[in-house]
């Protein structure tokens, strides 16, 4: 546990010093632009537009930041050989990997929390007072966590940051169509094609399970829904990390 905390701590410091928080500044620009564009609307419409725009921007910026930070997380340390020194200390490899991932997720979560504060301040100024913001933010963090765990796995499997980023983008896209893919698989006549489509559908993160918009508007966003969404996100992250550990355990430096 001590090793995980130590690796978590230095990873978080590293990201903060490498200005991962600039994502919050980017979000500020999005809000300013959104404010200018929606200034012609009536107050209640404007608040709703800014709410949707802000939440979508928080998730998008969080996702991009997480993927960028995670694909280079271990590969950069292998290239600079900093990983040599870490692994010549009594640190099981899974603890190193988990600490690195957790530190990165914490850095992105801090950025997302900063964005949320800015966003809430703006919404309060516009007179918005509906609930569900915390749930929406948590669902976005769940999506970010799943994508960062997947990116880490891809980076270790492909050993190339560019390829890992491309594949992460591909799976992110697939993750929005898992239900459609399962539907197509069910109607496919070829068992091979069916199996192939299902493999991709299961491998991609199913973002529909964390879609707070549908849940909120459909009135399904109760405690049980939130708990299942959390269980799915945690299980997906755990599966990706377990596979990443398997790959990392076999590496020689």
């Amino acid at each position: 546990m001590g090793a995980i905390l130590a690796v978590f701590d230095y990873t978080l410091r590293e990201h903060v010093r490498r200005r991962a928080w600039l994502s919050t500044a980017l979000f500020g620009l999005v809000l300013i632009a959104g404010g200018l564009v929606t200034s012609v609307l009536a107050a209640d419409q404007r608040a709703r537009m800014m709410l949707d725009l802000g939440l979508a921007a928080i998730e998008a910026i969080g996702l991009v930041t997480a993927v960028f930070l995670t694909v280079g997380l271990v590969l950069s340390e292998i290239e600079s050989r900093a990983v040599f020194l870490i692994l010549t200390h009594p640190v099981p490899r899974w603890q190193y990997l988990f600490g690195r991932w957790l530190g990165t997720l914490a850095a992105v979560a801090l950025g997302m929390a900063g964005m949320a504060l800015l966003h809430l301040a703006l919404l309060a100024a516009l007179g918005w007072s509906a609930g569900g913001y915390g749930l929406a933010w948590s669902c976005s963090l769940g999506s970010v966590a799943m994508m960062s765990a997947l990116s880490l796995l891809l980076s270790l499997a492909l050993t190339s940051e560019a390829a890992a980023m491309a594949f992460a983008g591909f799976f992110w896209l697939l993750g929005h169509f898992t239900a459609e893919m399962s539907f197509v698989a069910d109607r496919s006549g070829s068992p091979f094609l069916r199996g192939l489509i299902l493999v991709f559908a299961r491998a991609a993160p199913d973002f529909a399970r964390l879609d707070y918009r549908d849940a909120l508007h459909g009135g399904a966003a109760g405690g049980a829904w939130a708990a299942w969404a959390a269980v799915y996100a945690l299980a997906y992250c755990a599966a990706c990390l377990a596979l990443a550990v398997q790959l990392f355990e076999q590496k020689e430096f």
Partner: protein
Amino acid sequence: MNALSLRGVRKVYRRSHLGRVTETVGLDALDVEVRRGEVFGLLGLNGSGKTTTIKLVMGLHLPTDGAVEVLGRPVPDVEVLARIGYTPESAYLNRALTGRENLRLFAALSRVPARGRETRVAEMLERVGLSRAMDKRLSEYSKGMLQRASLAQALIHDPELVILDEPVTGLDPLAIKEVRTLILWLKERGKTVLFSSHDISEVERVCDRIGILSAGRLAKTMTQDEWRGRPDALEDAFAASVARTDGVGEIKL
């Protein structure tokens, strides 16, 4: 009792590119034993297998064949790493951290108890002459300072076995003298020191025994009695034992 023993160790690097597999023999039937409390020097040309030997001992590589035992335990073994201090040939440290943060990280990874860790970190930085630069980031350190920071991380947990890979390569004469003094200080304290070098004059000044590596094999071992008081004895033995394997010919005058 031996601090370290390698028996019949063979290491073959396999690389495959477009289905074509190439094999390079890094070590071949290597037998080396290092006794507790001695300073043992691994001498050899570039590519002779010095660093490969050290990486096998540190668990960064796995042997293709043979057995490696460190402090009575077969490696790879994460637990035994808590009793070893290792400095690689270059200071592979995370440059985003300060000298103090870096040492704090390695103290935590090496299981230095939390109580008294800060004192130990400050003492070690003082010992290696970095106390005035401890709050500067490592990206601002000179090569000599980085080498000292790397030595500090190897010694922070008071290890039984200290492994130094090419510790004097690229250092100025004053720094070389300090490294020599450090090795002798470790020996006085009963530590076992294994260091690799191709600098014969350094090795003969500090080692109790040496092993000459050539083409991945142990070509010769010598004790201090065999070279003390006999100028050029070690150099002559070295020249007679090694063969170039890097494809470089002699300089013709």
